[in-house]
Protein backbone atom coordinates (compact mmCIF):
# COMPACT_ATOMS: atom_id res chain seq x y z
CA UNK A 1 0.00 0.00 0.00
CA UNK A 2 1.14 3.50 -0.61
CA UNK A 3 1.87 5.56 2.44
CA UNK A 4 0.60 9.10 2.87
CA UNK A 5 4.04 10.43 3.64
CA UNK A 6 4.19 13.28 1.18
CA UNK A 7 2.82 16.54 2.46
CA UNK A 8 1.93 17.76 -0.97
CA UNK A 9 0.61 15.26 -3.41
CA UNK A 10 0.08 16.04 -7.07
CA UNK A 11 -3.41 15.68 -8.40
CA UNK A 12 -2.77 12.65 -10.53
CA UNK A 13 -0.85 11.02 -7.74
CA UNK A 14 -3.62 11.82 -5.32
CA UNK A 15 -6.09 10.01 -7.47
CA UNK A 16 -3.83 7.16 -8.36
CA UNK A 17 -2.95 6.53 -4.72
CA UNK A 18 -6.55 6.73 -3.68
CA UNK A 19 -7.57 4.28 -6.30
CA UNK A 20 -4.77 1.73 -6.34
CA UNK A 21 -6.41 -0.49 -3.78
CA UNK A 22 -9.86 0.03 -5.14
CA UNK A 23 -8.73 -0.70 -8.67
CA UNK A 24 -7.15 -3.94 -7.59
CA UNK A 25 -10.42 -4.90 -5.95
CA UNK A 26 -12.52 -3.76 -8.87
CA UNK A 27 -10.69 -6.06 -11.23
CA UNK A 28 -12.48 -4.54 -14.18
CA UNK A 29 -9.58 -2.66 -15.68
CA UNK A 30 -11.97 -0.59 -17.70
CA UNK A 31 -12.30 -1.90 -21.17
CA UNK A 32 -11.07 -5.47 -20.86
CA UNK A 33 -7.47 -5.79 -21.93
CA UNK A 34 -7.08 -2.19 -22.96
CA UNK A 35 -5.18 -0.02 -20.55
CA UNK A 36 -5.45 -2.71 -17.89
CA UNK A 37 -2.22 -2.15 -16.07
CA UNK A 38 -0.62 -4.46 -13.61
CA UNK A 39 -1.16 -3.45 -9.99
CA UNK A 40 2.54 -3.75 -9.20
CA UNK A 41 3.23 -0.97 -11.69
CA UNK A 42 1.51 1.45 -9.37
CA UNK A 43 3.89 1.10 -6.50
CA UNK A 44 6.50 3.38 -7.95
CA UNK A 45 5.92 6.60 -6.11
CA UNK A 46 6.59 9.00 -8.94
CA UNK A 47 4.84 7.11 -11.61
CA UNK A 48 1.61 8.74 -12.64
CA UNK A 49 0.72 6.57 -15.62
CA UNK A 50 1.15 2.87 -16.20
CA UNK A 51 4.72 2.17 -17.21
CA UNK A 52 3.66 0.41 -20.34
CA UNK A 53 1.01 2.69 -21.75
CA UNK A 54 3.39 4.51 -24.08
CA UNK A 55 4.45 1.14 -25.44
CA UNK A 56 0.91 -0.12 -25.74
CA UNK A 57 -0.18 2.99 -27.64
CA UNK A 58 2.82 2.62 -29.92
CA UNK A 59 1.93 -1.03 -30.45
CA UNK A 60 -1.65 -0.16 -31.31
CA UNK A 61 -0.57 2.57 -33.70
CA UNK A 62 1.77 0.16 -35.46
CA UNK A 63 -0.95 -2.42 -35.87
CA UNK A 64 -3.43 0.11 -37.23
CA UNK A 65 -0.89 1.53 -39.66
CA UNK A 66 0.03 -1.94 -40.87
CA UNK A 67 -3.63 -2.62 -41.51
CA UNK A 68 -3.94 0.68 -43.37
CA UNK A 69 -6.65 1.81 -41.01
CA UNK A 70 -4.81 5.01 -40.20
CA UNK A 71 -2.00 6.94 -41.80
CA UNK A 72 0.98 8.05 -39.74
CA UNK A 73 1.18 11.42 -41.47
CA UNK A 74 -2.48 12.06 -40.73
CA UNK A 75 -1.92 11.28 -37.07
CA UNK A 76 1.05 13.68 -37.04
CA UNK A 77 -1.15 16.29 -38.59
CA UNK A 78 -3.87 15.93 -35.95
CA UNK A 79 -1.31 16.26 -33.16
CA UNK A 80 0.32 19.24 -34.84
CA UNK A 81 -3.03 20.92 -35.34
CA UNK A 82 -3.94 20.77 -31.67
CA UNK A 83 -0.44 21.48 -30.41
CA UNK A 84 0.31 24.40 -32.69
CA UNK A 85 -2.67 25.72 -34.61
CA UNK A 86 -5.80 25.48 -32.49
CA UNK A 87 -5.46 26.96 -29.05
CA UNK A 88 -6.26 29.86 -26.75
CA UNK A 89 -4.54 32.38 -29.02
CA UNK A 90 -7.64 32.00 -31.21
CA UNK A 91 -9.95 32.89 -28.36
CA UNK A 92 -7.66 35.78 -27.44
CA UNK A 93 -8.16 37.26 -30.92
CA UNK A 94 -11.91 37.07 -30.42
CA UNK A 95 -11.70 38.79 -27.05
CA UNK A 96 -9.38 41.52 -28.29
CA UNK A 97 -11.68 42.26 -31.21
CA UNK A 98 -14.64 42.51 -28.85
CA UNK A 99 -12.69 44.92 -26.66
CA UNK A 100 -11.96 47.33 -29.49
CA UNK A 101 -15.11 46.97 -31.57
CA UNK A 102 -18.44 47.48 -29.76
CA UNK A 103 -20.45 46.26 -32.72
CA UNK A 104 -18.44 43.07 -32.87
CA UNK A 105 -18.89 42.67 -29.16
CA UNK A 106 -22.66 42.96 -29.55
CA UNK A 107 -22.67 40.33 -32.31
CA UNK A 108 -20.42 38.09 -30.25
CA UNK A 109 -22.77 38.14 -27.30
CA UNK A 110 -25.91 37.52 -29.33
CA UNK A 111 -24.62 35.20 -32.09
CA UNK A 112 -21.43 33.69 -30.73
CA UNK A 113 -20.83 31.02 -33.34
CA UNK A 114 -21.22 33.40 -36.27
CA UNK A 115 -19.18 36.18 -34.70
CA UNK A 116 -16.34 33.78 -33.90
CA UNK A 117 -16.52 32.47 -37.47
CA UNK A 118 -15.90 36.03 -38.70
CA UNK A 119 -12.36 35.61 -37.39
CA UNK A 120 -12.07 32.23 -39.06
CA UNK A 121 -12.62 29.97 -36.07
CA UNK A 122 -15.11 27.15 -35.94
CA UNK A 123 -15.53 23.42 -36.28
CA UNK A 124 -15.53 20.48 -33.91
CA UNK A 125 -16.64 21.37 -30.41
CA UNK A 126 -17.37 24.91 -31.46
CA UNK A 127 -20.52 24.40 -33.52
CA UNK A 128 -22.77 26.13 -31.02
CA UNK A 129 -20.95 28.85 -29.18
CA UNK A 130 -22.32 31.09 -26.49
CA UNK A 131 -20.12 33.92 -25.24
CA UNK A 132 -20.83 35.31 -21.79
CA UNK A 133 -19.44 38.64 -20.68
CA UNK A 134 -17.92 39.47 -17.33
CA UNK A 135 -18.86 42.82 -15.87
CA UNK A 136 -17.95 44.63 -12.71
CA UNK A 137 -20.75 42.87 -10.83
CA UNK A 138 -21.06 39.63 -12.83
CA UNK A 139 -18.48 36.88 -13.15
CA UNK A 140 -18.87 33.84 -15.39
CA UNK A 141 -17.21 30.48 -14.94
CA UNK A 142 -17.35 27.48 -17.30
CA UNK A 143 -17.23 23.81 -16.35
CA UNK A 144 -18.34 20.43 -17.66
CA UNK A 145 -19.34 18.37 -14.64
CA UNK A 146 -20.19 15.23 -16.63
CA UNK A 147 -17.22 15.08 -18.95
CA UNK A 148 -14.74 17.59 -20.33
CA UNK A 149 -16.68 19.63 -22.87
CA UNK A 150 -14.70 22.67 -23.95
CA UNK A 151 -14.69 25.04 -26.95
CA UNK A 152 -11.86 23.55 -29.00
CA UNK A 153 -11.76 26.07 -31.88
CA UNK A 154 -11.23 29.03 -29.55
CA UNK A 155 -9.37 27.46 -26.62
CA UNK A 156 -7.85 24.27 -27.98
CA UNK A 157 -7.89 21.12 -25.87
CA UNK A 158 -8.63 21.58 -22.19
CA UNK A 159 -5.90 21.62 -19.54
CA UNK A 160 -5.68 18.73 -17.11
CA UNK A 161 -7.14 20.71 -14.24
CA UNK A 162 -10.29 21.49 -16.24
CA UNK A 163 -10.84 17.76 -16.77
CA UNK A 164 -9.94 16.90 -13.19
CA UNK A 165 -12.38 15.51 -10.67
CA UNK A 166 -11.55 18.32 -8.28
CA UNK A 167 -12.63 21.04 -10.68
CA UNK A 168 -15.62 19.23 -12.13
CA UNK A 169 -17.00 18.43 -8.69
CA UNK A 170 -16.44 21.79 -7.02
CA UNK A 171 -16.99 24.44 -9.67
CA UNK A 172 -20.76 24.19 -9.34
CA UNK A 173 -21.03 23.87 -5.56
CA UNK A 174 -18.16 26.10 -4.46
CA UNK A 175 -17.26 28.45 -7.29
CA UNK A 176 -16.01 31.12 -4.91
CA UNK A 177 -13.67 28.67 -3.24
CA UNK A 178 -12.34 27.44 -6.57
CA UNK A 179 -11.80 30.99 -7.79
CA UNK A 180 -9.93 31.88 -4.59
CA UNK A 181 -7.56 29.00 -5.30
CA UNK A 182 -6.91 30.55 -8.68
CA UNK A 183 -6.10 33.77 -6.88
CA UNK A 184 -9.39 35.49 -7.63
CA UNK A 185 -11.25 36.63 -4.52
CA UNK A 186 -14.60 38.06 -5.57
CA UNK A 187 -16.57 40.24 -3.23
CA UNK A 188 -19.95 39.07 -2.00
CA UNK A 189 -21.81 41.55 -4.16
CA UNK A 190 -20.49 40.03 -7.38
CA UNK A 191 -22.92 37.57 -8.97
CA UNK A 192 -21.30 34.35 -10.10
CA UNK A 193 -22.78 32.51 -13.05
CA UNK A 194 -21.49 28.98 -13.53
CA UNK A 195 -22.11 27.43 -16.94
CA UNK A 196 -22.22 23.63 -16.92
CA UNK A 197 -21.71 22.48 -20.53
CA UNK A 198 -24.01 19.47 -20.39
CA UNK A 199 -25.38 19.59 -23.96
CA UNK A 200 -23.82 20.66 -27.27
CA UNK A 201 -23.41 24.34 -26.51
CA UNK A 202 -19.88 25.44 -25.69
CA UNK A 203 -19.06 28.51 -23.65
CA UNK A 204 -16.42 31.19 -23.87
CA UNK A 205 -16.05 33.89 -21.26
CA UNK A 206 -15.46 37.43 -22.49
CA UNK A 207 -13.28 38.83 -19.72
CA UNK A 208 -13.29 42.47 -18.73
CA UNK A 209 -10.76 44.65 -20.44
CA UNK A 210 -8.31 45.58 -17.72
CA UNK A 211 -7.45 49.10 -16.69
CA UNK A 212 -4.34 50.57 -18.20
CA UNK A 213 -4.87 49.12 -21.66
CA UNK A 214 -6.50 52.16 -23.25
CA UNK A 215 -3.58 52.84 -25.58
CA UNK A 216 -3.04 49.28 -26.70
CA UNK A 217 -3.76 48.00 -30.19
CA UNK A 218 -5.97 45.02 -30.88
CA UNK A 219 -2.91 42.85 -31.51
CA UNK A 220 -1.33 43.97 -28.25
CA UNK A 221 -4.54 43.29 -26.40
CA UNK A 222 -4.72 39.77 -27.80
CA UNK A 223 -1.30 39.15 -26.27
CA UNK A 224 -2.51 39.77 -22.74
CA UNK A 225 -5.66 37.63 -22.88
CA UNK A 226 -5.09 34.38 -21.01
CA UNK A 227 -6.72 31.03 -21.50
CA UNK A 228 -7.85 30.91 -17.88
CA UNK A 229 -9.60 34.27 -18.19
CA UNK A 230 -11.68 32.84 -21.04
CA UNK A 231 -12.68 29.85 -18.89
CA UNK A 232 -13.49 32.32 -16.16
CA UNK A 233 -11.17 31.18 -13.39
CA UNK A 234 -9.11 34.37 -13.54
CA UNK A 235 -9.34 37.91 -14.80
CA UNK A 236 -7.02 39.42 -17.34
CA UNK A 237 -4.48 41.15 -15.13
CA UNK A 238 -4.15 44.91 -15.28
CA UNK A 239 -1.08 45.82 -17.25
CA UNK A 240 0.16 48.07 -14.47
CA UNK A 241 0.80 44.96 -12.38
CA UNK A 242 3.54 42.44 -12.96
CA UNK A 243 1.37 40.72 -15.50
CA UNK A 244 2.05 37.26 -14.11
Amino acid at each position, binding site marked *: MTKPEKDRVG*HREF*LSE*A*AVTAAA*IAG*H*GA*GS*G*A*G*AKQPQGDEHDHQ*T*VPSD*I*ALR*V*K*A*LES*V*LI*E*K*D*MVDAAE*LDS*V*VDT*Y*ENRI*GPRNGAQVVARAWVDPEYRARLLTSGTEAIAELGYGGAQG*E*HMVVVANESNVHNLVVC*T*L*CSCYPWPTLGLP*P*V*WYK*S*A*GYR*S*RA*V*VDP*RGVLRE*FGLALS*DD*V*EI*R*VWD*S*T*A*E*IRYLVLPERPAGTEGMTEAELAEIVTRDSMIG*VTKVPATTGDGA
Partner: protein
Amino acid sequence: MNGVHDMGGMHGMGPVEPEPNEPVFHEDWEGRVFALRLRTSRWMRGRDMGSHRFELERIAAAAYLRMSYYERWFSVLVDRLFRGDFVTAAELEAGTADPNEPLPPLLPASAGDQVSASRLDVDVTSRFRPDDWVRARNVHPQGHIRLPRYTRGKRGRVTRDHGVFALQDTGLDGLRLGDFPQHVYTVQFSARDLWGSQASARDSVFVDLWEDYLEPD
Protein backbone atom coordinates in the same frame (compact mmCIF):
# COMPACT_ATOMS: atom_id res chain seq x y z
CA MET B 1 -26.26 6.36 -15.04
CA ASN B 2 -25.54 7.54 -11.55
CA GLY B 3 -21.83 7.09 -12.11
CA VAL B 4 -18.79 8.71 -10.58
CA HIS B 5 -18.44 10.75 -13.78
CA ASP B 6 -21.48 12.76 -12.68
CA MET B 7 -19.47 14.59 -10.09
CA GLY B 8 -21.00 18.04 -9.83
CA GLY B 9 -21.29 18.89 -6.14
CA MET B 10 -19.24 15.99 -4.81
CA HIS B 11 -16.63 16.47 -2.11
CA GLY B 12 -13.31 14.76 -1.61
CA MET B 13 -12.33 14.59 -5.27
CA GLY B 14 -8.92 16.11 -4.79
CA PRO B 15 -7.46 19.56 -5.35
CA VAL B 16 -7.64 21.73 -8.43
CA GLU B 17 -4.06 22.06 -9.56
CA PRO B 18 -3.31 24.38 -12.44
CA GLU B 19 0.00 23.69 -14.10
CA PRO B 20 1.94 26.71 -15.36
CA ASN B 21 2.79 26.51 -19.06
CA GLU B 22 1.01 23.22 -19.39
CA PRO B 23 1.71 21.42 -22.66
CA VAL B 24 -1.23 20.33 -24.81
CA PHE B 25 -0.09 16.74 -24.44
CA HIS B 26 2.12 15.74 -21.54
CA GLU B 27 3.46 12.66 -23.27
CA ASP B 28 3.68 11.77 -26.93
CA TRP B 29 1.35 8.84 -26.40
CA GLU B 30 -1.46 11.17 -25.32
CA GLY B 31 -1.41 12.99 -28.63
CA ARG B 32 -1.31 9.67 -30.46
CA VAL B 33 -4.35 8.41 -28.54
CA PHE B 34 -6.22 11.61 -29.34
CA ALA B 35 -5.35 11.34 -33.03
CA LEU B 36 -6.05 7.60 -33.20
CA ARG B 37 -9.48 8.12 -31.75
CA LEU B 38 -10.31 10.80 -34.33
CA ARG B 39 -8.80 8.90 -37.24
CA THR B 40 -10.38 5.53 -36.49
CA SER B 41 -13.90 6.87 -36.06
CA ARG B 42 -14.89 6.15 -39.68
CA TRP B 43 -14.18 2.45 -39.08
CA MET B 44 -16.74 2.41 -36.29
CA ARG B 45 -19.61 3.42 -38.54
CA GLY B 46 -22.51 1.03 -38.98
CA ARG B 47 -21.39 -1.27 -36.17
CA ASP B 48 -23.59 -0.24 -33.26
CA MET B 49 -20.57 0.75 -31.25
CA GLY B 50 -22.69 2.88 -28.98
CA SER B 51 -21.94 6.09 -27.20
CA HIS B 52 -18.31 6.94 -26.61
CA ARG B 53 -19.35 9.04 -23.63
CA PHE B 54 -21.28 6.15 -22.12
CA GLU B 55 -18.32 3.83 -22.56
CA LEU B 56 -16.18 6.27 -20.64
CA GLU B 57 -18.83 6.48 -17.94
CA ARG B 58 -19.04 2.72 -17.66
CA ILE B 59 -15.42 2.40 -16.69
CA ALA B 60 -15.57 1.06 -13.13
CA ALA B 61 -15.61 3.95 -10.68
CA ALA B 62 -12.30 3.18 -9.02
CA ALA B 63 -10.55 2.77 -12.34
CA TYR B 64 -12.20 5.89 -13.74
CA LEU B 65 -10.73 7.96 -10.93
CA ARG B 66 -7.33 6.34 -11.16
CA MET B 67 -6.97 6.76 -14.90
CA SER B 68 -5.89 9.94 -16.61
CA TYR B 69 -8.08 11.40 -19.32
CA TYR B 70 -6.20 9.86 -22.23
CA GLU B 71 -5.86 6.54 -20.46
CA ARG B 72 -9.65 6.42 -20.43
CA TRP B 73 -9.77 7.28 -24.11
CA PHE B 74 -7.21 4.58 -24.87
CA SER B 75 -9.14 2.05 -22.89
CA VAL B 76 -12.35 2.77 -24.79
CA LEU B 77 -10.54 2.92 -28.13
CA VAL B 78 -8.96 -0.51 -27.65
CA ASP B 79 -12.23 -1.93 -26.47
CA ARG B 80 -13.94 -0.71 -29.64
CA LEU B 81 -11.22 -2.05 -31.89
CA PHE B 82 -11.51 -5.42 -30.19
CA ARG B 83 -15.29 -5.45 -30.39
CA GLY B 84 -15.23 -4.57 -34.08
CA ASP B 85 -12.69 -7.36 -34.75
CA PHE B 86 -10.24 -4.81 -36.10
CA VAL B 87 -7.47 -5.77 -33.73
CA THR B 88 -6.91 -8.83 -31.58
CA ALA B 89 -5.37 -8.91 -28.14
CA ALA B 90 -2.51 -10.94 -29.59
CA GLU B 91 -1.84 -8.29 -32.21
CA LEU B 92 -1.80 -5.55 -29.62
CA GLU B 93 0.52 -7.63 -27.48
CA ALA B 94 2.86 -8.28 -30.40
CA GLY B 95 2.61 -4.77 -31.78
CA THR B 96 2.26 -6.12 -35.27
CA ALA B 97 -0.66 -7.06 -37.51
CA ASP B 98 -1.38 -10.75 -38.01
CA PRO B 99 -1.73 -11.26 -41.79
CA ASN B 100 -4.17 -14.10 -41.11
CA GLU B 101 -6.62 -11.78 -39.38
CA PRO B 102 -9.07 -10.42 -41.96
CA LEU B 103 -9.79 -6.71 -41.75
CA PRO B 104 -13.51 -5.97 -41.48
CA PRO B 105 -14.74 -3.61 -44.20
CA LEU B 106 -15.71 0.02 -43.86
CA LEU B 107 -19.48 0.15 -43.57
CA PRO B 108 -21.98 2.83 -44.49
CA ALA B 109 -23.46 4.82 -41.65
CA SER B 110 -26.43 3.27 -39.89
CA ALA B 111 -29.12 4.29 -37.46
CA GLY B 112 -27.15 2.87 -34.56
CA ASP B 113 -24.26 5.29 -35.07
CA GLN B 114 -23.60 8.18 -32.83
CA VAL B 115 -25.33 11.07 -34.53
CA SER B 116 -23.86 14.44 -35.01
CA ALA B 117 -24.40 16.58 -32.00
CA SER B 118 -25.28 19.51 -34.22
CA ARG B 119 -28.51 21.42 -34.13
CA LEU B 120 -31.16 19.79 -36.29
CA ASP B 121 -32.91 21.72 -38.97
CA VAL B 122 -36.38 20.44 -38.17
CA ASP B 123 -39.47 22.15 -36.92
CA VAL B 124 -40.44 20.93 -33.49
CA THR B 125 -42.80 22.76 -31.18
CA SER B 126 -41.16 24.04 -28.04
CA ARG B 127 -42.89 23.30 -24.79
CA PHE B 128 -41.12 26.03 -22.84
CA ARG B 129 -40.16 29.65 -23.36
CA PRO B 130 -37.62 31.90 -21.76
CA ASP B 131 -38.68 32.93 -18.25
CA ASP B 132 -40.79 29.80 -17.78
CA TRP B 133 -40.23 28.03 -14.51
CA VAL B 134 -39.43 24.37 -14.90
CA ARG B 135 -38.37 21.46 -12.75
CA ALA B 136 -35.73 18.94 -13.72
CA ARG B 137 -37.20 15.48 -13.57
CA ASN B 138 -36.18 13.18 -10.79
CA VAL B 139 -35.09 10.28 -12.97
CA HIS B 140 -32.25 7.79 -12.58
CA PRO B 141 -31.84 5.78 -15.76
CA GLN B 142 -28.95 3.37 -16.02
CA GLY B 143 -27.93 4.46 -19.49
CA HIS B 144 -26.25 7.66 -20.63
CA ILE B 145 -28.08 10.85 -19.70
CA ARG B 146 -27.07 14.51 -19.79
CA LEU B 147 -29.10 15.56 -16.79
CA PRO B 148 -26.63 16.01 -13.93
CA ARG B 149 -27.74 14.51 -10.64
CA TYR B 150 -27.36 17.76 -8.75
CA THR B 151 -30.17 19.33 -10.79
CA ARG B 152 -32.70 16.51 -10.53
CA GLY B 153 -35.89 17.50 -8.81
CA LYS B 154 -34.69 21.11 -8.67
CA ARG B 155 -36.56 24.14 -9.88
CA GLY B 156 -35.09 26.51 -12.40
CA ARG B 157 -35.91 29.19 -14.92
CA VAL B 158 -35.51 28.87 -18.68
CA THR B 159 -33.22 31.58 -19.97
CA ARG B 160 -32.68 30.54 -23.56
CA ASP B 161 -33.99 28.16 -26.20
CA HIS B 162 -31.13 26.77 -28.31
CA GLY B 163 -33.25 25.06 -30.93
CA VAL B 164 -33.69 21.41 -31.74
CA PHE B 165 -31.14 18.68 -31.04
CA ALA B 166 -31.18 14.91 -31.05
CA LEU B 167 -31.37 13.30 -27.65
CA GLN B 168 -28.06 11.67 -26.75
CA ASP B 169 -29.40 9.33 -24.08
CA THR B 170 -28.66 5.64 -24.38
CA GLY B 171 -29.91 2.39 -22.98
CA LEU B 172 -27.76 0.04 -20.95
CA ASP B 173 -26.32 -1.34 -24.18
CA GLY B 174 -24.88 2.08 -24.96
CA LEU B 175 -27.07 2.52 -28.02
CA ARG B 176 -28.97 5.75 -28.36
CA LEU B 177 -32.65 5.51 -27.54
CA GLY B 178 -33.49 7.42 -30.71
CA ASP B 179 -33.28 10.91 -32.10
CA PHE B 180 -36.36 12.28 -30.34
CA PRO B 181 -35.64 15.72 -31.82
CA GLN B 182 -36.47 18.31 -29.20
CA HIS B 183 -35.53 21.72 -27.93
CA VAL B 184 -32.56 22.21 -25.66
CA TYR B 185 -32.83 25.02 -23.14
CA THR B 186 -30.48 26.78 -20.81
CA VAL B 187 -32.02 26.57 -17.35
CA GLN B 188 -30.83 28.80 -14.55
CA PHE B 189 -30.81 27.21 -11.10
CA SER B 190 -30.16 29.47 -8.16
CA ALA B 191 -27.22 28.29 -6.08
CA ARG B 192 -29.45 28.30 -3.00
CA ASP B 193 -32.02 26.05 -4.68
CA LEU B 194 -29.25 23.62 -5.51
CA TRP B 195 -27.08 23.78 -2.44
CA GLY B 196 -29.07 25.40 0.33
CA SER B 197 -28.33 28.38 2.49
CA GLN B 198 -24.57 27.85 2.47
CA ALA B 199 -24.53 29.13 -1.11
CA SER B 200 -24.50 32.78 -2.09
CA ALA B 201 -27.94 34.18 -2.78
CA ARG B 202 -26.48 35.92 -5.84
CA ASP B 203 -24.99 32.92 -7.55
CA SER B 204 -26.52 30.49 -9.96
CA VAL B 205 -25.67 27.56 -12.22
CA PHE B 206 -26.80 27.48 -15.84
CA VAL B 207 -27.34 24.03 -17.29
CA ASP B 208 -28.27 23.07 -20.86
CA LEU B 209 -31.09 20.54 -20.77
CA TRP B 210 -33.14 18.64 -23.32
CA GLU B 211 -36.87 19.24 -23.09
CA ASP B 212 -37.58 15.65 -21.99
CA TYR B 213 -35.62 16.35 -18.82
CA LEU B 214 -37.98 19.10 -17.79
CA GLU B 215 -41.51 19.46 -16.56
CA PRO B 216 -43.48 22.64 -15.92
CA ASP B 217 -43.25 24.01 -12.40
